[in-house]
């Protein structure tokens, strides 16, 4: 058994920032990640970091834009924490050597981005995430922080009190991908989940193959609710054949969207008369699909993004990476022809419910980055707001886990007296646990809080049994088949446009996936680098996460942010200024709601009509 003060799971932007912060707060911190840190998907982020750095801009404008962008489902204390801290955290990155693009006077460059009232997106070419990831990993190397790379975390070692608010997380159980050894990692002070997004629940996604919602699923089964999972961002400009992302920076620099008739539809068809291409992402994604649906798509599938008029010099200076991506993954030369683009799953606004300090309702369990929901993004994330979330809330989670006092949070977590139960759900199938694969949310210790070692040992034992069962089974279904079915169900029915009947169909199909998973087996008999085994476990996580997305999409009968419902074409503020929370409840999920916090430090953010 390994032992550290703080264990950070995942080594992308949020995880690296949390580890550095915990280390600086004096903790013995270790990172456990299924990928080597520089392989993390933060590296694929292109656009930039929103930070109010310039004269004439200020954090309150950033906060306002973010609240509006969230369609008033962001929690003001979280949004304001982000906006206030982003400038100095961005400058901190600059001091760590991050190669930001520069202006003539030597200051860092900033550009316009969708939904922003000021050009405050700080960037490093069109490869900002790559530089952010490498810069922070360099700082981890500098500090000698221990990294267990290619260790796949399977489970949290959590006690099993009836009320998740009373539970305690004592560490994690992981297996060494290279050797197949399963070991416990005891965390004396806290576990920080920084496992990224669940994009692999969909089949057309900008997300990496590794984005399988592992942290979401583990925290969920350990008792921390998942929040606002129905809010999935579909990025308006992904390449049609692969889902590779074309940065919003292209539109920020002046790129134009055209339909098959050569119309600049964002204006000509009235989707966003003021902001056009730079409307919020949800608005642009729906506009594109509406164009395609009305017969004005190119090849009935996509629209064109044209940046030729920007000129080669400007493109090479600020968007060079886009030229490479379009050439390598779509065979298109962005200097001489428009690029084909369509919406692709990109980001999960929801996630593991945490407060401003990154804490879940389970003691000692934290989450930060895309896997967490503070909530900064509410119903829709603005471009350029994901990277500041990583550095601001990654740092806070790391510091708090290491024992620093960050003050009492304003955001509450877990089931409590401020929540409202869902009462009217008409579910087509029973969600939740289906039987054989007891992938173990919590250590079965008979309700008695055992010592930390005991909880770890039991969780390790459960994990070993689970792996043996998957490996020993001689035949059955392979995970790839189940995963493909799940991805198709989500893409067909829980996409940009959602109907009640469609979402119900998705829930039925997800249930089928669960049942088929009871018969899953791992064909590769080797303990050495068994990616078949790893993907089989990931697929179980994807099923749990996809189900919460569909459940949220079904119960929220309104249209807010990225969540569009055919039968409910208006935002219902009377009823729905609240977060959807789904709790695993030991295999019988329940749904409840917590009111959104619109009261900021100096003002209350009154919901207004959101137009761009």
């Amino acid at each position, binding site marked *: 058994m390994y032992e550290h003060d703080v264990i950070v799971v995942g080594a992308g932007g949020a995880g690296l920032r949390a580890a550095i912060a915990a280390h600086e707060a004096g903790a013995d911190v270790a990172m456990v990640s299924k990928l080597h840190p520089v392989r993390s998907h933060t590296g*694929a982020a292109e656009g930039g970091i929103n930070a109010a750095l310039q004269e004439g801009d200020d954090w309150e404008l950033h906060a306002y834009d973010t609240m509006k962008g969230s369609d008033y489902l962001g929690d003001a204390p979280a949004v304001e924490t982000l906006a206030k801290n982003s400038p100095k955290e961005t400058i901190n990155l600059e001091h760590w050597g991050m*190669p930001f693009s520069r202006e003539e006077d030597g200051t860092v460059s900033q550009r316009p981005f969708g939904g922003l009232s000021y050009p405050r997106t700080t960037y490093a070419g069109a490869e900002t995430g790559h530089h952010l990831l490498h810069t922070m990993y360099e700082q981890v190397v500098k500090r000698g922080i221990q990294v267990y790379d290619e260790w796949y975390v399977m489970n949290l070692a959590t006690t099993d009190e009836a009320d998740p608010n009373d539970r305690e997380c004592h560490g994690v159980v992981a297996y060494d991908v290279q050797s197949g050894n399963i070991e416990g990692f005891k965390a004396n002070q806290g576990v920080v989940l920084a496992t990224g997004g669940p994009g692999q629940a969909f089949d057309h996604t900008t997300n990496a193959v590794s984005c399988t919602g592992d942290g979401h699923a583990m925290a969920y089964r350990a008792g921390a609710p998942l929040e606002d999972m129905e809010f999935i961002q579909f990025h308006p400009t992904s390449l049609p054949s692969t889902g590779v992302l074309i940065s919003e920076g292209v539109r920020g620099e002046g790129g134009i969207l055209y339909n098959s008739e050569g119309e600049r539809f964002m204006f000509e068809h009235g989707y966003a008369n003021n902001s056009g291409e730079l409307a919020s992402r949800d608005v642009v994604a729906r506009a594109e699909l509406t164009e395609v649906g009305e017969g004005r798509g190119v090849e009935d599938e996509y629209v064109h993004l044209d940046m030729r008029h920007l000129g080669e010099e400007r493109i090479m200076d600020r968007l060079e990476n886009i030229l490479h991506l379009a050439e390598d993954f779509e065979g298109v030369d962005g200097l001489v022809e428009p690029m084909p683009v369509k919406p692709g799953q990109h980001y999960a606004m929801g996630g593991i419910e945490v407060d401003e300090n990154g804490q879940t309702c389970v003691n000692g369990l934290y989450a930060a980055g895309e896997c967490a929901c503070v909530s900064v993004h509410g119903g829709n994330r603005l471009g350029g707001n994901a990277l500041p979330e990583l550095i601001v809330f990654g740092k806070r989670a790391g510091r708090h886990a290491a024992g620093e006092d960050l003050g009492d949070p304003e955001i509450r977590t877990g089931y409590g007296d401020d929540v409202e139960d869902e009462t009217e759900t008409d579910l087509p199938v029973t969600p939740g646990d289906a039987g054989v694969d007891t992938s173990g949310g919590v250590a079965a210790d008979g309700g008695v809080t055992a010592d930390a070692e005991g909880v770890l040992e039991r969780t390790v034992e459960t994990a070993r049994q689970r792996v043996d069962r998957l490996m020993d089974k001689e035949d059955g279904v392979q995970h790839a088949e189940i995963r493909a079915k799940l991805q198709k169900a989500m893409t067909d029915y829980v996409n940009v446009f959602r109907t009640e009947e469609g979402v119900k169909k998705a829930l039925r199909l997800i249930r089928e996936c669960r049942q088929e998973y009871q018969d899953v087996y791992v064909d590769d008999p080797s303990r050495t680098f068994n990616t078949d085994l790893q993907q089989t476990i990931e697929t179980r996580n994807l099923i749990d996460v996809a189900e919460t997305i569909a459940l949220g999409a079904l119960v929220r009968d309104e249209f807010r942010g990225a969540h569009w419902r055919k039968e409910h074409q208006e935002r219902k503020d009377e009823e729905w200024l609240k977060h959807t929370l789904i709790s695993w409840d030991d295999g019988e999920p329940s749904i409840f709601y917590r009111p959104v916090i619109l009261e900021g430090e100096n003002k209350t953010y009154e919901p207004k009509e959101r137009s761009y």
Partner: protein
Amino acid sequence: MSTQQAEPESQEAPDDPAMNGAESPAADEQTGGGMVDDHAEKRAELEGETVHIKVFRYDPEVEGKQEPRFDDFHVPFEKGMTVLDAVMYARDEYDSSLTFRHSCRQAVCGSDAFFVNGKQRLGCKTQISDLEQPVRIEPLPHQEVVKDLVVDMDHFYDQMHTVEPYFQDEDTPATEDLEEQRQTPENREKIKMSSRCIWCGACMSSCNIAAGDNEYLGPAAINKAYKFAMDDREDEQIKEHRLRILEQEHGVWRCQTQFSCTEVCPKDIPLTEHIQELKREAVKKNLKFW
């Protein structure tokens, strides 16, 4: 372990992909094919066809795989199919034990550098229609094979860490008190290419010097050091310290400017030029060198 395996007899590929999981050992006598000239024509030719790939297999603990071999797969061609797409298809449809690293699918995570038709390439950004068939896919040479296409990267990471790859400012003030430093656009441009490295290991694998001298820092690590040494934000003293690391026995002077690293770099980093420039810097600083 060497990845240069004996060549079993060649055999005809069956047309029906369903017939065909792994049938091995079988490899061909192809001679490390080059690129096909007319891409569009080749692509059109492949529509509706299958692509023949031969994939290196090895697993130290599985009977039948302890001796390295090549497995043949016939993968239905789709427009835009990359080498990574092909091995993923083979894994998901024919043999779930086929093992390789991959993640982002867009040439930024650097996980999937393979030895494809005799050259180090990123699987995800190599169009299969550009390659001679059968496409021969092997792990990176000069690194220990863990299993199938997965190589041990520890030595690569160790070399990267040797050059102290981090900003060295020891007196960085608390975050609250930090002020933005200035950097000219020209200086930023100077380090731009070096900062694109994705740690895929292709350069190191292609380098004859690195193959013969295990302690040689190698092109990736030297390029990483270049990024810092050329950045005006670090002060002169630290630059000298960096040059001292670089001009040690197994540093820049080992490079014999064969340009193999530059040729294989999937991010087009002028690695050899960067190494040469650092040699000049070392001379300029009048530092003792080997």
